[in-house]
């Protein structure tokens, strides 16, 4: 076999290997979550994953959440005392302390079968603004969001999800 043919064959094999590798590669735009199909969570914490705050002083952090499409959760101030409000909390005694939280106003919502009853709910993306205090150093804030989700015809039991964030006190 001539040098030309050998080189052509080797180049071809190398290109083929590269092509196969490309076919199996998960590209950055193919999210990790997309490869784990499963039942969607009612509410997910979106961001931030890390914040930098002034050590020892109250700092404001805006936490973004998303309610799954087709669902709603009660706002922090539902219109009926029997309904379960959405509440963010941090365990007492943790390295990051919660000094207060302000919640968005709920959107007015009615169930199609009962237009006379007004509900105050969050749907889609919503933001809770928390006032936190952290000492100097790196801390893992392990907060929770307690909520209760429904769709137009049924409700799921109340749930508490973790809200985890790296807090750097400087």
């Amino acid at each position: 076999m001539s040098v030309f043919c050998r080189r052509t064959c080797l180049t071809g094999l190398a290109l083929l290997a590269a092509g196969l590798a490309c076919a199996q590669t998960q590209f950055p735009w193919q999210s990790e979550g997309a490869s784990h199909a499963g039942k969607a969570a009612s509410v997910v914490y979106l961001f931030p994953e890390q914040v930098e705050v002034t050590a020892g002083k109250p700092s404001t952090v805006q936490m973004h959440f998303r309610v799954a499409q087709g669902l709603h959760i009660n706002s922090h101030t539902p219109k009926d005392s029997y309904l379960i409000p959405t509440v963010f909390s941090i365990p007492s005694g943790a390295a990051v302390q919660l000094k207060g939280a302000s919640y968005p106003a709920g959107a007015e919502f009615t169930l199609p079968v009962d237009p006379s009853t007004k509900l105050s709910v969050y749907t889609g993306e919503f933001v809770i603004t928390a006032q936190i205090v952290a000492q100097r150093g790196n801390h893992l804030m392990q907060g929770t969001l307690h909520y209760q989700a429904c769709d137009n015809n049924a409700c799921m039991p109340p749930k508490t999800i973790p809200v985890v964030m790296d807090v750097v006190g400087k």
Partner: protein
Amino acid sequence: MKRNTVVLFVVLFLLAAFAWAGWANWESRRQAAARAAAMSAPADLVMPGGEGDLPPTIAPLINKPAPNFTLEDVHGKKVSLDAYKGKAVLINFWATWCGPCKIETPWLVDLRNQYAPKGFEILAVSEDDLDPGDKQKLKEETQQIASFAQQMHMDYPVLLGGDAVTQPYGGLDSLPTSFFVDRSGKVVAAQVGLTSKDEIEGNIRKALGGQS
């Protein structure tokens, strides 16, 4: 000539390999996008009507004996499902925080008044959280459920601590969920989520043995 033929085959092979790799890559991304779309699709808590559409955890209960349970009602009296043999029973899992449950409760009250003389009863099993370890809190929680039941004119047994009996009834991912038990104690129908008064009435008649 022979060398040129070999080179031509190699080039064609490479082109075919690239075409295949490109297709495989596109297919992989298409499937990932479809999975992502499925993840963000509207969540549907309620299964469409019909026994065949019941959640797989609940469907196997149809035409089987209803799992027995004994729970306390809001007045502290023990109530057992077995004590209702000979009657048609609607076991309604609900909670005070459940909006759709609140909508269907007046329908249940009406239907119970209508069919009780024919041997029909409702057992409302509350899924509200209780704190058995804190007596004062438990008392307040019980009182809250009792007040709600009174406001809604639920003149049938309202049972507490439903969490303890949800497993034999399929785990109950969503409320309201109702099971219709005939006079022999067999589950003849189930409903998940808010349906309609007519559908509930149809299942009550089924439990009563076709009586109207």
